[in-house]
């Protein structure tokens, strides 16, 4: 018997997960098929909505104020400002206490591992005490064995960025880390599991030992920032205990890959999917599709260990990510969407895919499918490719999330709309 659902979501990043949750909320039976780890493993875990305008003006204080100025083709314009707000509220509900920032429309400026600040709309609670607009003096702590984050350098960088507080950095040895090339998760697990570690004062729990290492370096600062490795499963407890022992607020500085806050967000989304009754199939790719006589998608093919299994649904959501998630691919002479071959506009000459300034206006960063207001991908003649296919997240083109700081926001808003519409239509 063929596998059959109301809605099939392809791709399990923020966009796919949000789409699946939104579709389930409409009462639809939902299945989510995803291949590899999502981009969240690489991303900071921050939820950006809009930090800079299309022209690069910013940082923007109120992102919702400026969405209408974006070009007509921008995904935010396709779904409308109201939908972006609704999607954020939807996220706030799903994330609960794990995220903060919903008390205001204003962006927050968050210090990240490069040292400077970036605008974002929602942030993990673990970063909440570190906001740059909070004027409290700050101690940043880095570790000798962790080359990604240099705390004294980040502190001077914050100063150069004009942050309204005094910041100081120290580099310490992480108690219990014996290998110079220990993985980031090793640090987190030491703290999570309260592993006993050797210290000069005898054996201590990792949390206690870390606090004792840091404490002598506090000079009256009321908050202490660490690279984002303070626990994985028990991050809240780890932070609370450290704060208690240090007598100061403790926060995490978001980092590059592998990003624990990103993975924590992924875990949170997958728990929500389970609670919502979404059937999740991971580790397998969608590799093809068949249409009905009328050109709608009848079923897609999922590659299970070499066998192509049909998965049928009334409505489909394509949320396979962009160049990073592999929802958009390229060869020497073309960029394309690999499952349905939806139209991806791009210059014929690949030397027109980039500009010479690495941070210039990069055409490749805007690669993706072009949707209508229903988020249905359009073909080269601006007709929907399929009547029952919508697209969401980084697989969409026409925006540069890196320049705008809009990545997770676009995935949320379009996932919410695409999933909601697909759910409503399928269970009608």
């Amino acid at each position, binding site marked *: 018997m063929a596998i059959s659902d109301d809605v099939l979501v392809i791709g399990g990043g923020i966009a796919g997960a949000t789409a699946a949750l939104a579709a389930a909320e409409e009462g639809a039976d939902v299945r989510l098929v995803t291949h590899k780890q999502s981009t969240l493993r690489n991303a900071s875990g921050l939820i950006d909505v809009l930090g800079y305008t299309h022209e*690069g003006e910013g940082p923007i204080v109120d992102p919702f104020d400026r969405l209408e100025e974006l070009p007509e083709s921008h995904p935010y314009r396709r779904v409308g400002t109201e939908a972006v707000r609704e999607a954020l509220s939807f996220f706030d509900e799903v994330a609960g206490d794990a995220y903060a920032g919903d008390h205001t429309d204003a962006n927050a400026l968050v210090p990240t591992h490069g040292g400077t600040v970036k605008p974002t709309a929602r942030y993990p609670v673990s970063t909440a005490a570190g906001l740059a*607009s909070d004027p409290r003096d700050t101690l940043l702590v880095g570790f000798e064995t962790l080359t990604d984050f240099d705390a004294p350098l980040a502190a001077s960088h914050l100063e150069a960025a004009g942050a309204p507080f005094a910041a100081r950095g120290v580099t310490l040895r992480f108690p219990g880390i014996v290998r110079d090339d220990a993985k980031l998760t090793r640090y987190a697990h030491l703290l999570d599991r309260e592993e006993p570690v050797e210290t000069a004062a005898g054996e201590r729990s990792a949390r206690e030992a870390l606090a004792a290492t840091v404490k002598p370096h506090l000079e009256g600062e009321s908050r202490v920032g660490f690279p984002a490795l303070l626990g994985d499963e028990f991050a809240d407890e780890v932070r609370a205990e450290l704060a208690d022992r240090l007598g100061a607020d403790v926060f995490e500085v978001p980092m590059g890959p592998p990003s624990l806050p990103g993975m924590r967000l992924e875990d949170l989304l997958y728990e929500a999917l389970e609670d919502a009754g979404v059937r999740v199939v991971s580790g397998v790719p969608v590799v093809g599709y068949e249409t009905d006589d009328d050109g709608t998608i009848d079923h897609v093919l999922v590659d299970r260990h070499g066998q192509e299994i049909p998965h049928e649904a009334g409505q489909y959501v394509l949320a396979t990510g962009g160049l990073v998630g592999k929802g958009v691919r390229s060869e020497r002479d073309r960029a394309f969407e690999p499952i349905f071959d939806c139209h991806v506009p791009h210059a014929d000459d690949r030397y027109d895919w980039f500009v010479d300034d690495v941070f210039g206006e990069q055409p490749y960063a805007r690669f993706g499918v072009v949707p209508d207001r229903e988020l249905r991908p359009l073909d080269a003649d601006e007709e929907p490719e399929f009547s029952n296919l919508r697209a969401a997240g980084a697989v969409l083109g026409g925006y540069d999330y890196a320049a705008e700081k809009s990545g997770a926001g676009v995935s949320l808003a379009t996932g919410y709309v695409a999933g909601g519409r697909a759910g409503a239509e399928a269970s009608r």
Partner: protein
Amino acid sequence: MAHDTEVLVLGGGSTGCGIARDLAMRGVEVTLVERGNLTDGTTGRMHGLLHSGGRYAVSDQASAVECIEENEILREIAGHCVETTGGLFVQRPEDPDDYFREKLEGCRDCDIPARVLSGREAREVEPYLAEDVKRAIQVPDGAVDPFRLCVANAVDAENYGARIETHAEVIDLLREGDDIYGVEVRHESGPGKRTHGTPGTTEEITAEYVVNATGAWAGQIGAMADLDVEVRPSKGVMTIMNVRQVDTVINRCRPKGDADIVVPHETTAILGTTDEEVTDPDDYPEEQWEVDMMIDTLSELVPILEEARTIRSFWGVRPLYEPPGRGTTDPTDITRDFFLLDHEERDGVSGMSSIVGGKFTTYRAMAEEISNHVCEQLGVRASCATAEEALPGSENLAVLEEGMDDFGLRSPIARRSKQRLGSRSQEVLETDEPNPVVCQCEGVTRAEVQDAIDQSGSDLNAVRIRTRASMGNCQGGFCCQNMANELHPEYDEATTREALDELFQERWKGERHALWGEQLSQAMLNYALHATTMNRDNDPASHTEAVDYGAFDSGDSSVRPSSRRRSGGD
């Protein structure tokens, strides 16, 4: 008249550094000036082939003989820069039999060890060769790291008392009447190691003798003293693959042609090349067709290249020279030999010679000949010792293998560090401090990066060429930042930021030519990491306009745990 130095060498490529070492070892006082980093010219933009001479065995046997001689010497004195990969001249069914025979005879004439392999035998050596290859000639080609070798020459010259000034551009030749007696240089950040953000200065350096070893730029230097040096710069492209599809140098066995060689290099394989005359060695088009041609043509020999991931492409310009009056039109026909132009003999202007042409493989022999000439001018009697004295890093390599533990490093990393550092491993890696890996792709540790910073100041591209950090698959996306972190606190935040921006932009420059498939995805990931997470594209610290922090979210005061506000000690 007292001079600042006896000999002034212009140009920090293999030729200039080789000459500086040779003269310094003979007890001559030497100063070398280079406008950028060591190897910033053609030396850092070549293919990495340690010629066996096989490539010239038909067309230019004098060069071929010189190549095999120098090939053998470099294996001895620079073992840590050379990988003895061996090479194959591979014949496809459509390639001419006559030429194959001539090649084989040519190798034998030039004393280049050569052995014929059947197609099947060749595929046993290199399984990714096309199934229909006909046969091959096996020769002792090798792979050489031009960065390491050039830097080792400069370091040794310094050990013998030379002054090496990088980021010191010659802006004028000092000439009085018919005598050249020095140069004026502009130091980008003052003399000594480079530090970003330090103001520039100029300096006049006088010398008894000036050696113009600026390669493709030799004509520009000559013009400063109204001398004609007829270099004909010719560009060539090289395309770097993400893995070593081959472990042997693969040459196509047919008369000259573009895209006919693959050289394994460290973790990569490099495809090459083209030969096109250009007018300005600093400004020439880098074109898509050249990259496409590398992949398409070389796929005929090694079919998996068609689908493989390219990480970047780069171009170099050959400093070809043609003695006046020959009028060769096709640059591939211009001799690869080198020429010593004594401007006194040629132009009646004393005090300077120019070196043009030549190859990296024969840099030492060139340097020897030129140094002999200079010593003659100066009346110095000491003779050349560079063929016998190992370079720093290549001393006692055999002893090294046995006597070294792994410095607490995972074995693949330790192995790579040892390959790069050779006999300097102990000195560099032995540290009581933690020594984490800074660049994952290439397995470069902090100690190596710090050692390079000691040598070269805040210049991260100089650190890169010394260590290979940021030269792997991610092209620096994941490690540029970490390399910059290593500059602090010796260098301040602003310097560090400028150095990072410079390295990141440099990495992008070569990546642009590999922007499709996996590498385009990697580029997006790198861009996202640096712009989205780190906001390096809009860093308030780099903008003059101040951010109004007060207008942004300062946290939800209703949930901030007030108990954790410090209440005055505990």
